[in-house]
Each structure stands twice: as C-alpha cells, then as structure tokens.
C-alpha cells in the first residue's frame, strides 16, 4: 500500500480523513472466515482496480469519457484532467476500487522531494484509481523505443506493489502470453475471481489454497 502511494504521488491523508475518505489505490483487507476459535482462519486480500474486461462498469458510465479501456494493454486508464468529479463511476464500481479527492492534495513542506516525476498528481474533486503504474509502463516503452525495439522487455515493466511485496504475493505479467507465470497461475485450480457473476470479466486473478476463500469470492454478502 505504501509503495503504491509513494509511486503514484498520493498525498498524505488529511487529519480528518477516515478509512472511507482516504485514497488507497491498493488496499489490503483482512478477511476472516467467521468461524469461532478453533477453526478460525483469516487472510489478507489486496484489492485494487480489477481492470475489468469488455463490460467495464466504470467506462460506460463516465459522462465525459474520462475513463478508457486501452485495447492494447487491457488497462482501464483514468484521465484526471477530464474528470468532472460526478462520482458516477464510483457508484458503479462493485469492487470499491475508485477513490475521490475529497480534499486538495497537500504535501507538507519539505516532502515535495518525495514526489515521483513520472506521475502527475491529481487535483481536488476528481476520481482516481490504480492504473497498473502507468508511469512505469511509459518508462519501459521509452526505453524500448530508445533501443529500437517495438515491444517492451517484460522485466522492465512491473508495478510498485508487485515489486515491493516481500512475500511475493503479487505477480504481474502478460496475461495473453500463455507461457508467462501469471497466465499459468490464472489457469490453476486454486485461481478465482471476485464477483464473477456480474459479468465484469476482471483481469485480476487471485489464488488461494484455502477452499473457504475461493468459495467466499463469488458470493454476494448477506448482512
């Protein structure tokens, strides 16, 4: 979560920000199986934009085309400069992956040196979300172009979260390339997705050796 915020120039949270008004492109949820003491189990689920497929809930509802699904990379990109701040996309997203700038982003004096020059900070009143560290994608593409190559080298482009996770819980790669590790993992028996029945076709896959986790993912909660 921290590396994501640092990489993408997310401003430090305001004093009055709560867990519902803070900006966390990647957010880790502790989830338990709800069982009593002896059989109690819990996991940590990193939730981020699921980069939905063709029927993205957010792309179709934005009134000014400020969200785009890039057919080449499959990434759902947000254009903060065009965003009106109507928050319709946030209502549409079932994964709660979108965050709104309820405050003017402010960096305390002296912390501006931490800003990443490859990523534009957003202004107050616009929505934002994970875009698979687009800045890094651009860097990799620039490097490939400088070397005269058409495609980027797979190792050159990795989002901050995957790069920094010490437990190697996040794996990133080309889903379309069948030989890649992500592709192999997505097809394993332990793979699952969240809310598959909604027809969002996310490109994020999760794997778990625990059956209760896999079963939980498809269910709509009963309160």
């Amino acid at each position, binding site marked *: 979560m921290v590396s994501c915020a640092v990489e993408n120039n997310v401003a430090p949270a305001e004093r009055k920000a709560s867990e519902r008004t803070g900006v966390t492109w990647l957010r880790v949820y502790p989830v338990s199986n709800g069982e009593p003491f002896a059989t109690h189990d819990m996991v940590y689920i990193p939730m981020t934009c699921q980069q939905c497929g063709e029927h993205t809930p957010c792309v179709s509802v934005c009134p000014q*085309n400020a969200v785009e699904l890039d057919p080449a990379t499959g990434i759902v990109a947000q254009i903060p400069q065009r965003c009106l701040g109507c928050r*319709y996309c946030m209502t549409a997203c079932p994964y*709660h992956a979108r965050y709104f700038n309820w405050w003017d982003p402010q960096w305390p004096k002296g912390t501006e040196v931490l800003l990443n020059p490859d990523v534009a900070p957003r202004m107050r009143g616009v929505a934002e979300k994970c875009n698979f560290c687009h800045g890094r994608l651009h860097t990799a593409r620039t490097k490939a172009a400088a070397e005269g190559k058409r495609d980027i080298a797979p190792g050159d482009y990795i989002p901050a979260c995957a790069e920094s996770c010490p437990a190697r819980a996040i794996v990133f790669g080309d889903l379309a390339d069948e030989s890649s590790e992500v592709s192999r993992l997505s097809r394993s028996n332990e793979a699952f997705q969240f*809310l598959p029945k909604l027809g969002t076709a996310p490109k994020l896959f999760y794997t778990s050796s625990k059956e209760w986790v896999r079963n939980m993912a498809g269910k709509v909660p009963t309160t």
Partner: protein
Amino acid sequence: MDRQFIPRGLQRSTLSQFIAWLLPWALMLGIGLYATYLCLAEGLHHTNMDNRFAFGLWIYLDLTIIALGAGAFFTGFLLYILRREELKAVINSAVVLGLICYSGAVAVLMVDVGQPLRAWFTFWHPNTHSMLTEVTFCLTIYLTVLLIEYVPVVLKNRRLRQVPRFLVFEFELHKVMPVFAGIGTFLSFFHQGSLGGLYGVLQGRPFAYREVLGIWPSTFYLFIISAAAAGPSFVLLTTWLVQRLTGKQLVKREVLSFLGKVSGSLLIVYVLLKAIDTLYWINHTAPDGGAPAYTFYASQSFGLWILFTEIVLLGLAPAAVLLSRKLRERTGALVGAAFLACCGIMLNRFVMTIQTLALPTLPFDAFMSYVPSWQEVATFLAVVAYGVLLYSLSFRYLNLFPQERDIRQ
C-alpha cells in the same frame, strides 16, 4: 406601496408583511450559500459523503425535485397538446414550480461535482453510452425551455405589460407555446427516464440493476411513469398549500379533482408495472447477478417493509383514493392521497440512491450507513428557501392563478 406591480383585482398582503414573510427564507438561503461556499472553496470533505457513499443527500434531492417538477412538463402537455383547457388555471404556477425545481437541481449539481468549471466537458467529450451524458444534455436544454416558458408569465406583470414591445412579444410567444410544450415533453421523457437508467445500468450493483427493454433498463420507463404520476400530485399539493397559506381560493375545485384523477391513473399503471418489474427482478435478474433478492432486504433499516411501503402504502393506496370520484370530492382525502403519492415517489428515489449504496457488494463488505453533514442539509434547505422566495415573488407580482380574480368576484 408596491400595489402598482400587483395584478389588478387581486388582494395581496402589505409590503411589510410580505418582507416579514421573506426574511426567514432569505436567512435560510444565506446559511445555505455559506455552506455552498465552504464546499466550493475547500472541497467536498465538508460533506459526509465518502468513497462508499459517493452519492448522498444532494443526488437524492436532485432526483426527487426533478421527479416532482415533472408537473411542469406534464401540465403543459395536457394543456397545449391534449387541449385540456381546465389546466389553464394552474399552468403558470406549474411553470414556476418547474423552473424552481430544475434550476435548484442544477445549482445543487454544480456544488456536488468536484470540478464544476469542467461541466462543459460533457458537451465536448460526450459519452453517448452513459446515462449521465443524456441527463446533462436534456437538463440543460429543458432548463432553457422552462425559462422561455417563464418569460411570458413575467412579461404579463401589470407594469411590464404596459410596454407595448413586451406585451406583443408575450403574445407571439404564447402563440408558439405548443412547440415549447412539445419539446418540453419530449425532453422530459428522456431525462426522467435517464435518471432511472442511471441506476438500472449498474451491473456492479445487483440491487439496482435491471434487465434491458429495447435499449434502456426497465427503471428508465418506470421513472418516467412515476414522474408523470408525481407531477400532477405535486401541483395539486402546492396549489392547496398556497391556498391555505394565503387564505384565498385560487382555482375552481374541478381543477384539483382533475389533477388528482390524472395522477391516480398514472400511479396505478406505475404500481402495476413496478410490481411486475420487481417480481421479474426477484426471480431472474437478481439471482443471475449472484444473490437471491431477499439478501438485499436482510438488514433492519432496509427490510422488506420498505418495498411494501413503496408499492402498497404509498402507491396502491393513494392511487385507489385518487381514482375514486367520491373520495376526490373530499379535500382531505384528495390532498392526503396526493401527498402520499409524492412520498411514494420520494421513497422510490431514496431506495434507488441510498439503499443501493448502503448495500455491500464485495463478500467481505459490511452494510454502510450515511448521515448528511450540516453543510449538505443547509444546501438542501437553501434550495427549498430559494423555491419559496421565487414562488412568493411570482405569486405576489404575477398572475399565477387566472381563476383567482373571477372566484373573488
């Protein structure tokens, strides 16, 4: 002192009494404007909306007042297109109400979005698949149409009409009014529906998502019919309220009865269609999205009672009363039923906005709650105050109720 501006033959309170009436509303408006300033200058963190409750009181308010303001287009449609001449008695009042509702809604919308100065982007980069784009286009033009319909009412002010240019212009505008009434009806059809479509297309929220009929979800059509049902009831209600507050009879009794009958007829159609839609949703759409429908009503605050209230208590019951000629004769029943009908529509908008967002979507989500902040409430009240002020000024200086003079004699 301002008698020369008050329409001839009508009796209005003294200027000091009038100002005394206006002052508290002006104060309410002032407080709301301050709250608006806070939100515009410092950010929307002044509201209690958050990343889970991205739509709050303001969006609910917008939907509600647009639904109630549908009386303007529907009365215009009945009068100018279907030639129901009895509605001449309330058309001016309906136009003012419509103007208040829509201008108030647009004003609140400008505060609600994070970057109001970018509002024109929707016109420059329209996403024709989005319901909100459709709403934006329609509302902008419709507000213009309402202003054009308001101008003749203003120009017929006692002093203004003495300017020959104004009176002739008003005369010519009135001759082409059916065109504007037709456009208003056409536009209203789309934006009332699109506001319903806003929720019907949310495939990520199985509670709100509805199957598509043609190119729009069923909520599109349901919202149009419910707005058309609420409109006449709201006009009825406000006319009665103004009559009570001013102690004058402003329209002949048959006009109110007629409005009630129209509202009741549409309401019963709406209740029937809504019941069919709900049954279909319970049996097909919701389970297809991954959850049986009862799970959405499992919480205490939004139990099944809300569905029952919306369809039966605030839908079927007032419709039955409004359709009964005998009950329409009794003012208490007529006005009460109209009030319940409006409440039913308000509840429907509430359920679609607030309940949709309160319900969890991810398996490990919790049920969310939301209470508006004082800034949100103040802004909401400011719109109400603005409405009262504009209506009061219009009532005093313009001829909102043509039958008033004849009734007085």
